[in-house]
């Protein structure tokens, strides 16, 4: 039985073994059939158009559309990025450049030892594949639905860290500031930090 699964050799198939399908020539459609063809575009005149009038009307994208990236923050305002460069390594288009640096008590940008000092995404190279998002261990890097990324120079299309960072929300403080009292970075990742503590406000 199994040898029947092998492809047959050319010589084993003769012309007569091949089933021929008769193409349907179709009956003559008649005058009414032709008029039907004219009716289709005519009836379309009175129907709604499919066009989205883009600059005025922006149709929402798909929920998980791959748009511009965003660097997220912890609920107290510290950055989630730890400068590990995994996103840069994952990037197939070599669009991401990261330089990490050490956190110091005077300059605490993220919980833990390291933070991303330089963070650049080159949108001339980015293919929006999302591999960087999968690579990010702290969920610092995610994608927004923003798609209007055209510009007129190469420099403007290299987004710096401050272009990518998410906004400060309710209860967030602008880093650098100390970590939440009596918490270490694992508490941050477990979600124990809900908002900033008054003692964190150094200014």
């Amino acid at each position: 039985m199994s040898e029947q699964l092998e492809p047959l050799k050319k010589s084993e198939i003769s012309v007569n073994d091949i089933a021929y399908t008769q193409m349907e020539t179709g009956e003559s459609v008649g005058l009414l059939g032709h008029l039907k063809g004219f009716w289709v575009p005519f009836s379309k005149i009175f129907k709604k158009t499919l066009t989205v009038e883009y600059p005025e009307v922006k149709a929402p994208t798909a929920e998980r559309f791959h748009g511009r990236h965003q660097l997220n923050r912890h609920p107290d305002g510290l950055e989630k990025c730890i400068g590990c460069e995994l996103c840069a390594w994952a990037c197939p288009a070599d669009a991401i450049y990261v330089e990490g640096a050490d956190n110091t008590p005077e300059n605490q940008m993220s919980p833990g030892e390291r933070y991303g000092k330089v963070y650049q995404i080159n949108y001339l190279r980015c293919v929006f594949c999302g591999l960087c998002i999968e690579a990010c261990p702290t969920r610092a890097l995610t994608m927004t639905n923003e798609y209007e990324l055209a510009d007129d120079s190469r420099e403007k299309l290299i987004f710096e860290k401050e272009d990518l960072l998410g906004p400060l929300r309710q209860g967030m403080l602008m880093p650098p500031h100390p970590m939440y009292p009596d918490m270490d970075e694992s508490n941050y990742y477990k979600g124990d930090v809900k908002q900033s503590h008054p003692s964190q406000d150094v200014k």
Partner: protein
Amino acid sequence: MTTAELIAADSGTTILIKALLVFVFCVVLTLMSVWGERRLVGRMQERPGPNRVGPFGLIQALADGVKLALKEDLIPAAADKIVFVLAPIISATTCFMSFAVIPITGQVSLFGKTTAMQLTDLPVGVLYVLAIASVGVYGIVLAGWSSGSTYPLLGGLRSSAQVISYEVAMGLSLVAVFIYAGSMSTSDIVAAQSTWWYGVVLFPSFAIFAISMVGETNRAPFDLAEAEGELVGGFHTEYSSLKFALFFLAEYVNIIAVSALATTLFLGGYHAPPGLGFTEAWLGGWFTGIWFFSKVLVFFFVFVWLRGTLPRLRYDQFMQFGWKILIPVSILWILVVATLRTLSLEGAPRIVVVGFASFVVLLVMAANIGFDNAKKKKLASLEVETSEPSFAVPSIPMNVSNINVSQSSKGGDHV
């Protein structure tokens, strides 16, 4: 007082004003029809069409015109310069000239003078229109030839062959109108249609005219001269700026002109549709112009509708249709019409006329059945051939799909 006498009494200033009005009518109608066509075709294709320049995109055509005028005017090095410049001028002027004999309104008063909106009334008005249309072909042929480039040359040749072929059918379709109206003057033909439109009485002529006027104006589905996929832009490939704009203008004025001619010859010209005759006195006679205008717009809509519906014909199919169907059918139809007209003019008894007409109808039906049978026989003979191919066919490399399906459905225990 006939229209011809009315027009003959015009003073010089009246003629000038009328010429200006006709010119403005053509240009404004062209601008509006470019917009209207794009909007309509857009709606037919489920998109809105131009809607950004002005309210509803109304001045889109004007913006396009300004854009064309501001573009660089190129003359290719290989072009014959004088003819290259002359060609668009020929195209644009001839299309306006045919409007001179089209009666746009009935008797009206223009600045206190009684006249009719028709520039001049020639005894051979319709022949004049046909002649002018033929001269217009020179614009296209010369444009193709003088460009010094291959595609324009091919486009120009195609276009001339096409227009000349369809002019024969067009001319023949008009013969029946001449026989019935007893005149070639446009105003006489309109006057002769006061009871019955020729589009109804001479319906086959009307159908042939309507088809050939699409061929005559190089419009879809007969726009072979500008088949983008084969000839780039056809005869105007090398043209840019205002010269291109002139060709563009000529195309649309031509559409309006043939629509106006069809209205005049077959749809009763400026007369109101049957039953609405009382409207012709409204606005001091100017309302007839509105009837004329709306009939022209109906034709224009059909042009757009055709473009939105039908794909372009292949060149040989197109030529076969013109020479093997349209022209023989027109000639036979003329024979029938001429016989019927002669019978009724000679005062033959009604029974003879009716007998002849029914004989013709029977003949057409018999021929139709004969054609159908021949077609069926041909199809049947084709079916016999397909069951056993005599030609070489490529062998199929694998034959696994059927076996796989049947075994996996049993449970796949063959592994």
